[in-house]
């Protein structure tokens, strides 16, 4: 009825009206979303461009033309991909790929390239940096020279005019003007009681703000004198100093003015070396080829304990993963039974260790294992020197790992158990299988399919679990005759000590060893994952 009544009324309307209306209706929501989408797109691309522009400044300032080219190319590619209607798959793949490159590929490549250099303390910067550092630190005060009051002035614009020093001699109160040529007596000046010039005829005296803006020029500015040169010590004092060492570009060496000794640049080690073998402390970063790798392999103190550490490292990773898995699975099975009351409460209590920050917990456990003051010895009335003996220290760190790790295994096992259909277990019962038989033949194999990858990743994680060792034992106990390799040292803690313990930071060497560790972990993981696939083929 209503349609019939409504029909003519509608028909009475102008024909164009509904059609336009319809059109609008169909278009409006669409254009609405596309407007938002358009807006988001513009915003994001704007952000990308803004980021690129922001990142370009330091690159330009540092004259990293390759980096700049890379930045421009990447930004251009992103803009191109999202501004054309084509390349739909690329639109989805680009963000992930970029993040992969930035957060995965780049660090790996950077580590690999560092492994071939001597980057570390004493060899951090460029040769130019080293030369500057050597020259600056060799400037000494001329003995007995005066301590001048200093004002910094310029002729012309405070920001760009040539800098001159207005220097007041403390003894005579005579004011001189010092420029690159030397000292000349000044004209009319106003001097404070402390000897600082506040105004000088023909010059603009810079205030601290103006002067600090030209900091670099001021620190590099010297006024030549007979005994050396007048340099600034801050903005209000000047002294007469002499550079003790200078770089000679022709012979590529550093020469000491007083002793006449010279140190020639040795590009193979990145340092200035004298004829008698003495090296200047300030070196620079150079490529050393495979030196870091061969050092790790040939140095007895490093390669000697390597095998022992590797075996313990395997034992630790296997132990931490294996025991936590067994315990976690056991508890999960126990709480899986519907006959247990208050299961949720138990579950919450059991997951507690997982909720604690392991960083803090490791430190707490370390103190609990203290021989005299620790909770464990006090509680059990024992007197075990936990971290003093190799076996007890190893047991202790595994126990800590067990406590920290089983809740995770419990959680994943519970999840996996719930995915196993109950009928399957009922069927085994019907077939007459016992509890153990049905567990080993049905439940466990089915559990292993989702859990094996997790176990492998847990193994790989524990293999490099730096915190677990460093925060508890630091690798202790150490044999009396070897202070670099302790009984609980993992490869990673051992590496850390080798690279950063001995003579400061040695990033190049550390990178080389981490490549070795990476190769070991990668090999293990590859083999394990291959075996997992076989497992899946058998059981699925």
């Amino acid at each position, binding site marked *: 009825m209503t349609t019939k009544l409504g029909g003519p009324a509608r028909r009475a309307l102008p024909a164009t009206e509904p059609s336009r209306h319809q059109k609008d209706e169909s278009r409006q929501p669409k254009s609405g979303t596309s407007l938002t989408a358009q807006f988001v797109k513009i915003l994001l691309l704007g952000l990308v461009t803004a980021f690129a522009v922001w990142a370009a400044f330091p690159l330009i300032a540092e004259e990293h033309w390759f980096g700049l080219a890379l930045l421009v190319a990447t930004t251009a590619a992103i803009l191109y991909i999202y501004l054309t209607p084509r390349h739909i798959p690329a639109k989805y793949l680009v963000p992930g790929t970029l993040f992969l490159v930035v957060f995965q590929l780049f660090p790996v490549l950077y580590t690999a390239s560092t492994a071939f250099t001597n980057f570390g303390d004493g060899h951090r910067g460029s040769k130019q940096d080293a030369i500057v*550092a050597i020259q600056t630190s060799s400037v000494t005060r001329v003995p007995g020279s005066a301590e001048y009051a200093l004002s910094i002035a310029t002729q012309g614009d405070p920001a760009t005019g040539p800098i001159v020093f207005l220097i007041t001699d403390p003894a005579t109160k005579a004011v001189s003007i010092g420029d690159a040529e030397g000292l000349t007596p000044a004209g009319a000046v106003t001097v404070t009681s402390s000897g600082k010039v506040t105004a000088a005829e023909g010059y603009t005296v810079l205030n*601290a703000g103006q002067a600090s803006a030209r900091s670099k020029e001021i620190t590099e500015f010297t006024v030549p004198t007979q005994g050396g040169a007048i340099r600034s010590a801050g903005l209000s004092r000047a002294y007469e100093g002499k550079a003790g060492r200078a770089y000679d570009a022709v012979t590529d060496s550093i020469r000491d003015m007083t002793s006449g000794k010279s140190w020639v640049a040795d590009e193979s080690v990145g340092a200035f070396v004298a004829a008698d073998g003495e090296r200047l402390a300030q070196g620079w970063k150079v490529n050393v080829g495979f030196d870091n790798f061969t050092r790790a392999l040939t140095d007895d103190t490093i390669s000697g304990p390597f095998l022992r550490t590797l075996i313990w490292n395997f034992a630790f990773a296997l132990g931490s993963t294996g025991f936590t898995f067994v315990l976690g699975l056991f508890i999960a099975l126990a709480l899986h039974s519907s006959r247990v009351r208050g299961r949720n409460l138990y579950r919450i209590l059991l997951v507690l260790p997982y909720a604690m920050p392991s960083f803090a917990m490791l430190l707490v456990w370390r103190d609990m294992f203290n021989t005299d003051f620790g909770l464990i010895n006090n509680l059990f009335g024992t007197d075990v020197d936990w971290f003093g003996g190799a076996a007890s220290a190893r047991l202790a760190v595994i126990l800590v790992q067990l406590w920290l790790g089983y809740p995770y295994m419990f959680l994943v096992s519970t999840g996996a158990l719930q995915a196993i259909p109950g009928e399957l277990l009922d069927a085994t019962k019907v077939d007459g299988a016992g509890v153990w038989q049905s567990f080993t033949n049905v439940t466990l194999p089915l559990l292993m399919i989702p859990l094996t990858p997790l176990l492998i990743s847990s193994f790989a994680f524990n293999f490099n679990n730096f915190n677990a060792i460093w925060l508890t034992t630091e690798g202790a106990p150490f044999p009396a005759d070897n202070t670099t390799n302790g009984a609980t040292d993992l490869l990673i803690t051992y590496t850390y000590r080798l690279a950063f313990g001995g003579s400061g930071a040695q990033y190049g060497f550390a990178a080389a060893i981490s490549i070795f560790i990476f190769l070991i972990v990668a090999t293990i993981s590859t083999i394990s994952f291959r075996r997992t696939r076989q497992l899946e083929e058998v059981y699925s």
Partner: protein
Amino acid sequence: MRIRTAGVIAVCAVALVGTAACGSNDSKDKASDTPSAAAASGELVIWADDKRSEALKPFAEKFGAENGVTVKVQAISKDQQTTFLTASQQGSGPDVMVGAHDWIGNLVQNGAIDPVQLSDEQKNGIAANAIKAITFNGQTYGVPYATENLGLIRNTELAPEAPATVEALVASGKKLKAEKKVSEILCLQVGQNGDAYHSYPFYSSAGGYLFGTNAAGDYDAKDLGVGKPESVEAFKKLGALGEKGDGALKRSITPENSIATFTGKKCAYLVSGPWAVTDVKKANLKYDISPVPGFEGGKEATPFLGVQTFYVAAKGKNKALAQEFVTNYVTTPELAVALYNAEPRPPALTAAFDQVKGADADLQKWADAGKNAVPLPAIPEMAAIWDPFGKAEAAVIGGADAEKTVTAAGKTISGSIK
């Protein structure tokens, strides 16, 4: 379609060129703008640890206001030295860095700090051993503001007399232990991996040394004392105090529990520095501070002297202002007093020390305890000492053979000094 794509590329290219051009224009503008824009406001960036940065802030502001510049104080709470090195390498470091003087060697070899030229007058106003500590290769790097050294803090209710020798200390501690008044003879942190800093007074008293000195009085990295017969003898004495001997030195006393054990009245003697006093006061203990005693018939026990220092960063953007701040402002007593109030360590400035010593009786005692203190070696080679030395100490205290252990430690150390 093809035309459209080409158009998009063209637009992109134009846009990119535009932004790039803008970018370079901007940077040029910026470069020429900065001086005049900053004419009214230069900027000085200071890095310090959490406690000190708080104390520095009012003074930084005052310095800024006096000079018409802005001063930023940033707190670096962890790994200050490494953070500073990495940051200055990348050009994002501060202009002024506050830190311990034993960083100097490493900072210099990495070209991270500049020497500071102090006038004779300024030098005379600072404790002589503090000036000695910051002098490296004949140059003064930075301006010291506070010193710290180990002393013997004792609970005067349990031990009214300051022991004159290690033997007297051990005897008194043993007696207290036998009377069940304490559970430990001495609280000196050792830990599982040893602590070279805290054991050094005993080591030096027993005749051991770390590095010899050359004619100029600088440490000579080629003359390594660890592994020499003197050091073996010294370690034997440490071993005799250890777990298999008197039981005065124990690995179970760690950096974490040594002060707490003392404040918990479980031991009558604590070897520690001024930083421990805050906790001791909080525990309402009656205490006194005396020099760390030496062995009977041995040399004087010399603790290490640490000097807190203001450094001028070599790669700072505002070195002239940094030099001004460090040489002409840090050397004023007001700042040193404020920093003392933030953390009670004896000021290195004599004027500041005199100003606060009336209110704090401990200061003079710390200064007396540090009278023989030797500046911590600042040479980069010192980095090679800490770990092997500490571990050898822990092993010997645990009962290992001193000769074998120390010889091995000496070998490890000389191996890592190139």
